[in-house]
């Protein structure tokens, strides 16, 4: 660094004369004493002396007034200005806005000498936020400083760019920053990489063309620059891990070197080499190795070494160990490592150091789903933590218990959670925990009474902060019921009884959401309870309506309930009284209800028809076209009324007339037109709006969302299989259960009953209690361990289950079929497992067998990779033996590029020998890609081909059966992603694929959310001896969905004006396309853009993103650059296209 200083000094002889006595550490008296005499010092001292907030406010206001005068005075020197800035920073820190100073901060950054400039930049980065308009004024200064010969100024500019920079001005500085990547000083290169990281965060498309430079940074000879690039890689790998698998070897090598202490010692922290860098690398490895055995294998060694090296007892090594454990449990498992990681977790959990205990619990929570045995090992510790005086530890323990809940321990765990909830006051914690309780109750409820009571607790404790999904799910569950009618009946009846008794309590206040749930249930199912007079229920509801704390939204629910009850009683005094009372209510919504009720009561037959009993789940047929109004419309038109135009049409017309800027995205107008038609649909002549549950608050559209019972996309958790099987056990009471689980626990510990009884004698009361709690908490875990040992097949079915819930509405039949089969699969296991220890022994057996299998795999693969790895090692060792020189060449690119292990290359060459099938004939006509191989196994080969039709992207999946027997029920499933949508259904089933034959299926894909490249993954499963699942993924590019758009120049002009999102950018043209037409031809050929017109040195092009999102381009050439201007109704589309343009222009 000293040479930086030298150079700076020689570059700035003019500054030498300036002396700043007010600051400067290391001076004789130390910084504090010198500064204390400054104005900042006196401000701070006077504030510290104050006693009240009021006095402080007065003082600061005075200070701000004087500062305002000083900063705007023209005579203020830069040195004084710097002082003022620090004082302003101080005032803002105390919470007093000083926006008058912002512009002066920018000025100071522009005009000041080094330290003043730095303070100016600092103030800017503290005062302004990302979208502040003043930020634009900083750009010029930054550009100037980036070009400065003074390295310190360059550093400052780079620092501020990586903190805060206007997104739209990135092109102005990007080339300058790219240049800095080659700078000779590490600090400049490092900061340049940090700036690019910032750009990647705020505008990833703008830096896509410099990805190879990131690679260079990763291989930089300086460790600091390399470390800076890891931030970018972590981010990119998070978004798309499959694109960076080839770098795994490099990351592993780097980590090896860091762990091995090959960095210079000033990177050490308490003699641990670069710990935060290690953590960063471990995170990256975790992401890369997830679900990928081949990549994971590359890192087993280094993970093992990291575990070994981090043996010193210091917090920072614990941090590394924690990360290591997480990585080991994230990547494809290796039994040896898992064992070591588990030991490590054990050490953490048992530690007397509280921070370490917390970390251990967190790690345990993370790994527990894969390895429930670990919870059994530490059960006593977990119990202790449950009663820990530190609520944070308690909460983390509950989180852990939540992950191991099953049908047998749910009652205890939910009770513990409710206990915690009653003590907790923090809103966020309540929302979070309440949601968990509700989820567990739905999933594992052992009986009706418990379920209803638990949900009552959820609603009363959760109050009105509970997530709206919870009441919606609950009501849906009640309404839809299960296959067993008797069971449904009982559940509903119990709910009604329970609510009646709750409402019977005097002066009890219930949260609004709870009241809404109660009134819906009472309205819907009151008649199930035969021993209560409906009149009693009506009275209760009536008195609720008069309570002031009940909001009008809740009143709407109550009124709906009253209406439903009234429809089933002949005549009721309460209803009459209620109608009379509320017909004059000031609340228009309630008044409307009262009138509706009055009219309905006059026509009981209609009312019964309108409000049938228990029909909340029946589909309603709604005449959305409002055809019954046709006569009325015809009459209106006959009298000369203007025909109706939908909202979006009206807006379009208005726009084309005004040619004004449209600030509304098009999607919105469509949505509002839909909802408006929905409202008209409700005000049907029948008077009362739809049914009970939509509660017809047509006058109150604002509440529409919250009031209605959402039926779509709501998860139904309390499925048959989680509910009924346990029901059978209820009769048997708890006793046999605890006994069986006791023996199970003992089996896990190693010694059967003997040990337990011994312990029993010497245990104190308290310990016994704990033991008992443990046995209730950890019951059933052993059996689920057995289940998870089944390995892949099990997780596959669970995944499918989750998906089937989402599609439930469409495929309810399929799903229920599947569920029942799943239940039969699971059923016997759950029942038998806890009974004898033999079972668990057997399961450990299979486990060890599995482990040995894995390890033999590893040996094989090690063999394959041995050569490149050992080569790499020897070269590295050579370099490292020679101290200084090796330091610099440690991360040289040659290192990575030459010795890249290339598993992908190997498998490519293997696949080439296999025959690639040809496409079906109808596809060969279309423009299509080559047939790609997705997956090869012994039995199946998967191929994929993209075909670009005019209106969609057609994915053809070819499945070839390589075996000699037919394969039955081959299922192809595409996973849902946010970016892509598979039209029709994302699944396809081949009932049978004959031996040695080829089947194909076609799917149309649309892009839902714009991205330049995205991954669509899916799986093929089939039934041979066992359920087998092959996963695959395809990369789809934005260009797969772009089609030319034909239009006239005139249309182009019209459309151009109506579009609001625009992006402008200059693209460098290569020498081969020096003319506009050549450049445009490139775009036409490579990007399928349609050239609308070329006039002089300007050209216009048009394309569309399927199905029909247009994007218009306006191009102009000047001095070797192509200025492109994009416009589109969709904000992300221009960015995506811009990137593609840059790419193709760069290529040619």
């Amino acid at each position, binding site marked *: 660094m000293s040479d*930086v*200083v030298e150079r700076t*000094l020689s570059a700035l002889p003019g*500054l*030498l004369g*300036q*002396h*700043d006595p007010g*600051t*400067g*550490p290391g001076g004789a008296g*130390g*910084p*504090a004493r010198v*500064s*204390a005499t*400054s104005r900042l*010092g006196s401000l*701070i001292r006077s504030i510290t002396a104050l006693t009240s907030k009021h006095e402080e406010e007065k003082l600061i206001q005075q200070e701000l007034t004087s500062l305002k005068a000083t900063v705007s005075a023209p005579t203020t020197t830069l040195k004084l200005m710097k002082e003022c800035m*620090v004082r302003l920073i*101080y005032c*803002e*820190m105390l*919470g*007093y*806005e000083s926006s008058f100073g912002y512009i002066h901060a920018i000025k100071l950054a522009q005009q000041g*000498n*080094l*330290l003043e400039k*730095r*303070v100016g930049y*600092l103030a800017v980065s*503290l005062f302004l936020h990302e979208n502040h308009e003043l930020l634009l004024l900083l750009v010029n200064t930054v550009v100037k400083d980036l070009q400065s010969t003074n390295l*310190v100024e360059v550093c400052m500019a780079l*620092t501020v760019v*990586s903190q805060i920079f206007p997104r739209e001005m990135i092109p102005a500085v990007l080339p300058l920053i790219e240049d800095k990547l080659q700078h000779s000083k590490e*600090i400049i290169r*490092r900061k340049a990489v*940090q700036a690019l*990281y*910032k750009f990647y965060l705020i505008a990833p498309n703008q830096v896509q063309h410099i990805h190879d430079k990131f690679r260079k940074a990763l291989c930089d000879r300086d460790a600091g620059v390399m470390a800076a690039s890891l*931030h970018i890689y972590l981010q990119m790998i998070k978004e798309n891990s499959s694109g960076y698998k080839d770098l795994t070897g490099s990351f592993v090598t780097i980590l090896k070197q860091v762990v091995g202490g090959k960095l210079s010692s*000033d*990177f050490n*922290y308490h003699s641990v080499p670069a*710990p*935060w*860098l290690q953590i960063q690398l471990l995170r990256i490895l975790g992401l890369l190795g997830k679900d990928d055995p081949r990549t994971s294998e590359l890192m087993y060694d280094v993970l093992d070494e990291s575990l070994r090296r981090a043996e010193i007892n210091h*917090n*920072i090594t614990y*941090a590394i160990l924690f*990360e290591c454990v997480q990585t080991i449990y994230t990547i494809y498992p290796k039994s040896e490592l898992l064992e070591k990681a588990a030991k490590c977790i054990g050490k953490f959990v048992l530690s007397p150091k*509280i*921070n370490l205990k*917390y970390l251990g619990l*967190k790690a345990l929570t993370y790994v527990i789903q894969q390895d429930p045995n670990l919870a059994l090992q530490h059960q006593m510790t977990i119990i202790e933590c449950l009663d820990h005086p*530190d609520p*944070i*530890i308690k909460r983390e323990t509950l989180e852990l218990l939540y992950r191991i809940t099953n049908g047998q321990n749910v009652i205890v765990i939910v009770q513990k959670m409710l206990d915690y909830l009653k003590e907790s006051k923090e809103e966020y*914690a309540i929302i979070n925990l309440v949601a968990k309780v509700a989820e567990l109750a739905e999933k594992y409820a052992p009986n009706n009474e418990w379920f209803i009571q638990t949900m009552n607790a959820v609603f009363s404790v959760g109050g009105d902060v509970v997530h709206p999904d919870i009441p919606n799910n609950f009501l849906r569950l009640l309404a839809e019921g299960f296959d067993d009618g008797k069971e449904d009946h009982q559940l509903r009846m119990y709910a009604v009884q329970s609510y009646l008794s709750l409402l019977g309590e005097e002066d009890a206040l219930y949260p609004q959401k709870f009241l809404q749930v109660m009134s819906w249930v009472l309205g819907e199912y009151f008649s199930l309870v035969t021993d209560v007079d409906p009149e009693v229920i009506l009275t209760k509801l009536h008195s609720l309506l008069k309570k002031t704390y009940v909001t009008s939204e809740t009143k709407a629910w109550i009124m709906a309930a009253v209406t439903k009850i009234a429809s089933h009683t002949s005549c009721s005094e309460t209803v009459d009284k209620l109608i009379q009372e509320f017909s004059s209510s000031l609340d228009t919504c309630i008044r409307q209800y009262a009138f509706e009720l009055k009219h309905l009561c006059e026509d009981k037959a209609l009312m019964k028809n309108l409000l049938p009993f228990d029909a909340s789940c029946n589909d309603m047929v709604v005449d959305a076209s409002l055809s019954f109004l046709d006569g009325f419309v015809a009459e209106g038109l006959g009298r000369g009324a203007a025909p109706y135009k939908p909202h979006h049409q009206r807006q379009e017309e208005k726009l084309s007339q005004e040619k004004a800027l449209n600030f509304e995205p098009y999607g919105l107008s469509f949505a509002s037109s839909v909802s408006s038609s929905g409202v008209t649909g409700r005000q049907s002549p029948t008077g009362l709006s739809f049914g009970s549950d939509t509660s017809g608050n047509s006058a109150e559209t604002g509440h529409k969302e919250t009031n209605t019972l959402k039926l779509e996309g709501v998860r139904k958790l309390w499925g048959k299989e989680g509910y009924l099987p346990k029901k059978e056990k209820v009769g048997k009471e708890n006793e046999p259960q605890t006994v069986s689980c006791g023996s199970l626990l003992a089996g896990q510990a190693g010694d059967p009953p003997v040990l337990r009884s011994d312990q029993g004698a010497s245990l104190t009361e308290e310990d016994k209690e704990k033991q008992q709690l443990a046995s209730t908490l950890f019951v059933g875990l052993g059996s689920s361990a057995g289940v998870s040992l089944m390995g892949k097949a099990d997780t596959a079915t669970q995944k499918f289950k989750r998906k089937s819930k989402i599609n439930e509405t469409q495929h309810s039949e399929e799903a229920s079929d599947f569920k029942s089969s799943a239940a039969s699969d699971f059923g016997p296991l759950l029942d038998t497992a806890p009974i004898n220890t033999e079972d668990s022994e057997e399961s450990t057996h299979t486990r060890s067998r599995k482990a040995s299998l894995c390890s033999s795999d590893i040996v094989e693969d090690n063999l394959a990779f041995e050569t490149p790895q050992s080569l790499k090692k020897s070269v590295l060792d050579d370099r490292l033996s020679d101290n200084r020189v090796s330091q610099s060449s440690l991360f040289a690119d040659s290192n990575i590029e030459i010795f890249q292990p290339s598993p992908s290359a190997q498998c490519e060459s293997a696949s080439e020998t296999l025959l690639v099938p040809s496409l079906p004939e109808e596809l060969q006509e279309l423009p299509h890609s080559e047939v790609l191989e997705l997956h090869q196994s012994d039995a199946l080969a998967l191929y994929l081909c993209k075909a670009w039709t005019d209106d969609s992207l057609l994915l053809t999946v070819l499945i070839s059966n390589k075996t000699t027997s037919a394969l039955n029920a081959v299922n192809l499933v595409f996973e849902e992603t946010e970016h892509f949508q598979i039209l029709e259904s994302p699944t396809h089933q081949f009932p049978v694929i004959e031996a040695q034959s080829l089947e194909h299926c076609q799917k149309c894909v649309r892009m839902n959310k714009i991205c330049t490249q995205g991954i669509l993954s899916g799986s093929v499963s089939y039934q041979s001896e066992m359920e087998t699942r092959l996963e695959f993924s395809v990369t789809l590019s934005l260009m797969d969905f772009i089609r030319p758009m034909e239009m006239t120049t005139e249309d182009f002009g019209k459309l151009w004006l109506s579009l609001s999102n625009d992006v402008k950018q200059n693209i460098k043209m290569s020498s081969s396309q020096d003319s506009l037409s050549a450049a445009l031809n490139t775009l036409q050929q490579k990007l399928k853009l349609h050239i609308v017109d070329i006039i002089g040195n300007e050209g216009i092009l048009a394309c569309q993103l399927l199905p029909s999102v247009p994007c218009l381009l306006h191009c102009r050439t000047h001095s070797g650059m192509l200025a492109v201007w994009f416009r589109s109704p969709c904000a992300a589309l221009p960015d995506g296209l811009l990137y593609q343009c840059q790419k193709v222009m760069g290529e040619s």
Partner: protein
Amino acid sequence: MIKFFLMVNKQGQTRLSRYYEHVEINKRTMLEAEVIKNCLSRSKDQCSFIEYKDFKLVYRQYAALFVVVGIDQTENEMAVYELIHNFVEVLDKYFSRVSELDIMFNLDRVHIILDEMVLNGCIVETNRNRILAPLFVLDKVAES
């Protein structure tokens, strides 16, 4: 990701605040008051990590001064806990035995040091020499 970095003393007076996600000024003071209240309510034998709203607080106490860092769920609490110590060690080296006064009266310098270590909520530099190098250069220029 690190969301904010605070130094607050026992009396609840903020000595340093840096936010890595935009927060309105008036909300900052409220947040800081709540954060310090949370930290003060905890005893020495309780753990140094607090779950607070949808993020976590990692805090460390030096004499009367608390350093509190707000992080999201992806961050490693212990690594941040040690980052705080590393930061304080750097300050100690720069100010040769740092005190609360040093931090109060050299607000700008403390910020410059922190900017070298944490950027956009990421830990970017932990090497003490490299953290202090730019500031030493500035000081030398100012001195001469």
